[in-house]
């Protein structure tokens, strides 16, 4: 077992190291040991706080274990249970819905805001930027409690609906079977769009102004400018934003737990709610570990797919642009 983890350790850390010497080949030979000394603390911390817990989680997932008394080896039985449980499939579906609210929407909104902010000169832009970023720095429990109030039967959202005469739409948004899932989703959108916006604004700042001038000389309007220059240039930021938001969407626990606890019924359950319940309420630590491992693999696969998709198109587009310019 102990040899499996180091293999992962290497794939994790060798990329930067491998890339640099590749450029210099033999030249960096003498410096390698010094370089190693520099990364050693980081590797040690990574191993202790990431790899070792990961390995222990995997190890525990092979046992029937209540967290206290002696565990019994069950092999892959926990995984079979995880993959066949209907309530987990439902939870995974909810996670997919959350991908739209937690990842797709924030990226779109972030792009729109960043595009606007980079064009329009607003007095006190920094203040606006900071305000829009606030949701990202608030504690998620604070966010959840605030939104519970907003969504409340007597909360401001329903007050607003009543004020404009849409009385028939008012409801306890988090307590209604049909609206609870999107309602929790919108909270995620609100939390994440500020992060996307700030990432994109930083990306836009690095775009050469001459490109915009050239486009304008060619008669491009604001939309054309955004689609032809801003958007392609932001590809790396978009992929970073997607990695962060997708991870957040799939492992999301605190927002769900503090707003609905998975209810009403099972309408907002997500896999991490079951990880928590199995580990801390049901004392089925092995099962919870297996589910956590499956969740980790799902996140890695989805993020990997997104990265691969964006990277491929990225080089292709860049090559095409280069060709056009030549």
């Amino acid at each position, binding site marked *: 077992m102990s*040899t499996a*983890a180091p293999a992962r350790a290497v794939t994790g850390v060798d990329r930067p190291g491998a890339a640099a010497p590749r450029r210099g080949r033999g030249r960096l030979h003498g410096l*390698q040991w010094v370089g190693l000394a520099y990364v050693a603390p980081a590797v040690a911390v990574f191993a202790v706080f990431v790899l070792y817990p990961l390995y222990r989680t995997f190890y525990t997932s092979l046992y029937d274990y209540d967290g206290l008394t002696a565990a019994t080896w069950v092999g892959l039985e926990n995984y079979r249970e995880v993959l066949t449980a209907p309530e987990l499939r439902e939870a995974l579906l909810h996670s997919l819905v959350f991908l739209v609210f937690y990842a797709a929407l924030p990226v779109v909104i972030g792009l729109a805001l960043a595009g606007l902010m980079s064009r329009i000169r607003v007095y006190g832009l920094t203040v606006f930027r900071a305000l829009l970023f606030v949701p990202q720095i608030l504690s998620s429990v604070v966010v959840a409690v605030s939104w519970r109030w907003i*969504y409340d039967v007597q909360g401001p959202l329903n007050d607003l609906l009543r004020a404009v005469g849409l009385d028939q739409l008012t409801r*306890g948004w988090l307590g209604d079977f049909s609206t609870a899932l999107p309602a929790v989703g919108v909270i995620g959108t609100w939390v994440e769009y500020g992060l996307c916006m700030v990432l994109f604004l930083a990306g836009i700042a690095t775009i050469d102004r001459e490109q915009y001038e050239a486009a304008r000389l060619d008669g491009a309007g604001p939309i054309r400018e955004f689609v032809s220059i801003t958007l392609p240039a932001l590809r790396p930021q978009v992929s970073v934003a997607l990695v962060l938001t997708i991870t957040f969407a799939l492992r999301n626990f605190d927002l769900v737990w503090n707003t*609905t606890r998975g209810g009403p019924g099972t309408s907002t359950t997500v896999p991490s709610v079951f990880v928590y319940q199995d580990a801390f*309420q049901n004392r089925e630590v092995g099962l919870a570990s297996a589910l956590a491992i499956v969740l980790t693999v799902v996140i890695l696969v989805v993020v990997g797919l997104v990265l691969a998709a964006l990277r491929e198109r990225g080089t292709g587009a860049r090559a095409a642009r280069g060709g056009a310019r030549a």
Partner: protein
Amino acid sequence: MTANCSSRSGSWCRTPRVLASGAVLVTTSLALLSCGAPGGETSSSGPATSVEDEITAPVTPEQVAELGDVTLTVWADQAEQPLLEQVIPAYQEEYPNVTVEPSYRSFDDLIATVVNAAASSSPPDVFQGNIGYAVDGALVEAGLVRPLDDVASAYGWDEAPWESSLGPARWNADASAFGDGTLYGVSPVTEIQGIYYNQAKLDQLGLEPPTSLEELATDLQVAQDAGEQPIMLGNADQYPATHILSDLAAADGDPADIRAWIGGQEDATFVTDGNREAAQTMEEWAQAGYFGQGYDGVSNEDAIARFANGEGVFFVGGSWNGASLGEGFGISALPQGGSGAIASPWHVSASTDEVPAAAAFLGMLTTQESAQQILDGGRLPVVTEGVAGATELEQQTLDALEETVADEGQVGYYDWTTTDMLDVMGGSLQEVMAGRTGVDDFLETVQSDWADARAER
């Protein structure tokens, strides 16, 4: 990547390999720190009370003094803080060689962490658990808590009113069923379920406090016809509706059946007429709008706050809600039912070196003086003799408790019966109330979760 590397030559390859061996070192040495299967080091056999630790009479200050200067670490629900802030100074005065170090957590925090704390190398000496399999069952099964039968006879907990109240803290030998067997915990605080009412609104509507569920059902319609919300309910946490369900079931059915089912007795079943009628009533009331709109999105705290502010005519719930209600509110016990039970039991760590000090601490929590302090703090004491409520509501609640206990109506809570029953029953009941699941499906879902849990034990 490592495998590829070893087969290739070239200096750039060396870095990862050295890193790999470094990582191997780190991980293997970490792996060596942990031995064998998870939890292999914990013995699963219960501890035997050693003879010299046996408590045969109430502990005297001299016996405690023999321990020398010691510290008694205590983990408690933060709801206990007002009580302990009165009990601890009195305790330290009587037993001056003991320093009590309390640490308070929210209930959710406490039940999520106390089992691991009790299993750690430095467990608290005295701590609160929670009735049911998730906490107390795990503590008993792993042998982490000391049996308290000797302390019980020394302090009179084997007599009324304690004897019947402490049932849920008794476990059988393999911790597969509770309600009977060895005593592992004691709680000076008890709870009942009841119907809270807003007196001013009853007067307006020309109603008397209901004394039966039939009366309540009629009153609900009257309230609704008058444009009031009949019952204030906040069911976001899913348990409040299950409590109302159990009240209805305990009133309709036999409390003994319910107790047997909760305690995990063989052949017990949830599919009873009492539960079916109760679930049907819940559905009817919800569909009729008696619980108002959006109750699944309102927390219990918000609901009781609204009720205290004059919204809703009735609030059906546990006696702990009474602390939020001021003048103008009353409580009716639910006749021949009312459920409720003792609150989180106090345990003594099986590995504590200060058994006499711990026993003396529990002894002090269970005196009549503490009982009065518990009532003054807005909760209900197990000891009711010689205890008087400061407000009308407190006195009414105390009377309701005595009635409920006399009726043997303290059946406990449905969600004790399996570790995930709260989620299963709570979620499923929400579906019944929303008209999305039939009552029979609900009963089957609950019973099959119960049977699965029994099969695993």
